[in-house]
């Protein structure tokens, strides 16, 4: 235990003001135990300093040298394209900008049609459904009637065409028969004339 007026370690580490340092120095000069104590502390401090600082294995920053460095523009360009994270950040920033743009310019959504149904009662909904069903049934019935009429008209038209064809064929046949008859009569008449002449 030191009998120094101030802590010898504080003195060793130069943490004492000048006046207190002088007092310690005066005391140590006259006190053998304190002198040995201080010498022991100094020896320990010196021993600890045997452990020297190591060189950092990899530089953290880069201090550019104007003689060797590229132009500021080229350096910035190389730094930009040479950095994967920076490129990734740029891509992410562009994507974010595109998303923001698309969000801002998106047309306002149309008023929700189902917002009215939320206020309708169940009875009104049933009535609407019934009306729709009736309307659909009428539409189907009208459609079927129309189709039936079209079918009848089509059949009538087809039958009329067939009748006309039959009449036309009958007329042609009649005409043919009349023509044959006329020719036959002409032949008979000619033979009668010849027979009378022969007789």
């Amino acid at each position: 235990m030191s009998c120094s007026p101030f802590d010898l370690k504080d003195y060793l580490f130069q943490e004492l003001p000048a006046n207190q340092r002088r007092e310690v120095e005066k005391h140590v000069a006259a006190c053998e135990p304190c002198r040995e104590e201080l010498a022991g502390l100094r020896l320990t401090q010196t021993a600890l300093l045997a452990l020297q600082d190591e060189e950092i294995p990899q530089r953290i920053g880069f201090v550019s040298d104007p003689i060797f460095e590229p132009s500021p523009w080229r350096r910035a360009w190389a730094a930009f394209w040479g950095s994967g994270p920076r490129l990734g950040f740029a891509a992410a920033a562009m994507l974010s900008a595109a998303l923001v743009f698309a969000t801002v310019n998106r047309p306002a959504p149309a008023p929700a049609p189902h917002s009215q149904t939320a206020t309708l009662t169940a009875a009104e909904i049933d009535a609407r459904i019934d009306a729709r069903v009736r309307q659909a049934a009428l539409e189907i019935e009208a459609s079927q009637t129309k189709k039936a009429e079209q079918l009848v008209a089509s059949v009538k038209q087809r039958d009329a065409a067939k009748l006309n064809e039959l009449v036309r064929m009958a007329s042609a046949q009649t005409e043919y028969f009349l023509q044959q008859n006329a020719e036959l009569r002409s032949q008979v008449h000619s033979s009668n004339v010849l027979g009378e002449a022969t007789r």
Partner: protein
Amino acid sequence: MIFRAVEDADLIPQAARGNVEAYNLLVSRWEKRVYNYLLRITANREDALDLTQDVFLKAYQNLRKLDDTSRFAPWLYRIAHNEAYSMFRKRRPETDVDELEPESTETGITVGGSSVFPMELTLAVASALERLSKEQREAVVLKIYQGFKFEEMSEILECPVSTVKSRLYTALELLKKELAPIQARGV
């Protein structure tokens, strides 16, 4: 004496305004110290390097919040301390941070090829440091190796100066006992 045409206090406002070159210059001045601080409290080179990168990235992102440029060093080390402890918690979240011990390397922290100190002493120091508690070791590193004042250490570690001194002085007594046999052999 090292002459610096541009001081840290000049670089910090420029870097805070987004001047990458100014920040790179600032990093080049501090990276080795921060790396060695992290190396000594984590005892793992890979972790120390990863954490150093994280520290400087975080520092760059938060540089505008630093009002007093003269407090840059403790502010930077505060970030480093937080990053290291955050890593410890992630690795063993079920364990109290106070109980955590760093991973020990096979040969302790090695010395550069040009060391004037014998290897035996170096290994003894590394071994003695590893036997300290995490808080004691960090106090020793900040004071002996990084040269911070008690007030700055208090800021970095977010604890009273009295606590800082207690940790450091207890550690120093332990180290004195651990290293005494080596010193007695005249190494």
